[in-house]
């Protein structure tokens, strides 16, 4: 029997059933004021604490956010102490978000 290999994060997220995937336009349920991340935030912690890596830092150190991979865990809402994250639940019809197969 094989040792169980660790999956990469994209492989892990590939196992997630996201909602409204067929829709080209979705309404983001989290709005991030990245101007705050990129000006006054001393830690930019969302770029590493987010379990789905929705917050990334490019080679110039600029923080970017994408909502498509979000698994609605809530981590960023608590981790961000700078007021940059406006967190809501996704709209069932026009939002993203998850349907867990196991949970």
């Amino acid at each position, binding site marked *: *029997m094989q040792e169980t290999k660790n999956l990469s994060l994209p492989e892990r997220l590939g196992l997630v059933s996201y909602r409204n995937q067929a829709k080209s336009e979705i309404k983001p349920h989290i709005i991030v004021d990245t101007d705050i991340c990129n000006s006054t935030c001393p830690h930019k912690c969302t770029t590493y604490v987010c379990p789905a890596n929705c917050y990334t830092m490019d080679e110039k150190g600029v923080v970017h956010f994408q909502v498509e991979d979000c698994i609605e865990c809530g981590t960023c809402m608590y981790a961000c102490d700078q007021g940059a994250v406006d967190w809501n639940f996704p709209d069932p019809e026009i939002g993203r978000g998850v349907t867990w197969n196991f949970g």
Partner: protein
Amino acid sequence: MDEKFDCIIVGAGVAGLAAAMTLARNNMKFLLIEKGEFPGSKNVSGGVLWGSDLAKLVPNYWEEDAGWDRFINHRRLTFMDDQSTFSVDFKSSHFNETPYTGVVVLRSKFDRWLAEKVEEAIAESDFAMDSFIATNILVEEILMEDGKAIGIRTGEEKFYADSVIIAEGVNNLLTRQVGLQDAYVPADHMLTGIKEIIRFDQKVLEDRFQLNGKSGMSNEFVGFATDGVEGGGFLYTNKDTLSLGLVLGLKDLREKGKKPYDILNTFKKHPVIADMIKGGEVVEYSAHIVSSGDKRVMPKKLYSDGLVVCGEAANLLMNAGKAIQGMDYAMRSGILAADTIVESKKAGDFSDSAMKKYQDRLDDSYVMKDINNFQDAVHLLHDPVMTQKVPNLICDFGRNFFSIKNEPTKKARTMLGDSVKKHASYWDLVKLGLKGGKAL
């Protein structure tokens, strides 16, 4: 549906479903609203549902082959360093007796099954055609009038009721909207849980973990599991999968600059864990915030005029070292919330003082008694001495104690002393002992 309900419940997780079941059995007219595609579709737990309350909602649930995965008759607490594990292990056929001491559940399956049971109870109630479980609806606002909750709003639609039960889960936006929780909740006493579901051939799983029929095992880990971050690991046996994961103190994670999935990778590569999960296939990766059981983060008040808050929305969750309890607290608080609504309906009084009886009931129940009595234990478990130094010294002692070297053997007490000196100090342990004495 333009008539007024006796009650609107927001959220069809364990708390909301327990409340709904209780309302249906008491012939109340209610609306249970769930934002997910089906009940359980947005819920993540470890997860073991501890205790016997499930039998109150679904009598003889153990005769059914659906909903829950396995009952627990085998418990293990494991201290871990980078190469070793040292476990306290308890297995007993006493735990084969019903009602079980705990059942392992997967929420997407369990909550959906429990919701079917609620539907059955609705069908047998006086309001078979007037009480509903409505899915795919996001409640955006609790409607308030003169300080009293009068219903909810979703999009342009409004629904009205004499009372509202908020069972929306830990990310309690509505609880914040009505002012029972601060608008911003800091990371300090919250944890990020991450988990993988790992699938096996059922026989392989049963042989590997010595499972018999529907028996199961729960294993918690402290030490190396979390790679220096406050928190712990868990492993539960489901029917043909394992739930393997971590809960990580969010403030500590932020300060240490670590990524949760990197820590999970390190945990899974530990030689003891690698042996446990060998040959398994990861079929789901999930994450969710959990509260810690630290009272400092809990809403100060769990009711207001026409409104009560239960389950994780009220941050009713605790790990005091014995087990991670959350779903059982959710279930009991949901039942007590519904009991209060039923009583209020009879008296025709849904005022602030009527709703306070929910808080009184909760304070008198094991839920708040345990949370109040074990605050010191919660703090102790989040002490870095406990989460790092103690597991290292226990494993170091284990390695020496269980090594046979064909040399004169040191006394166990001397070995223990050596391990303490290497990994901590007596002063650390004295401080821990004082805290521990207080906690227990």
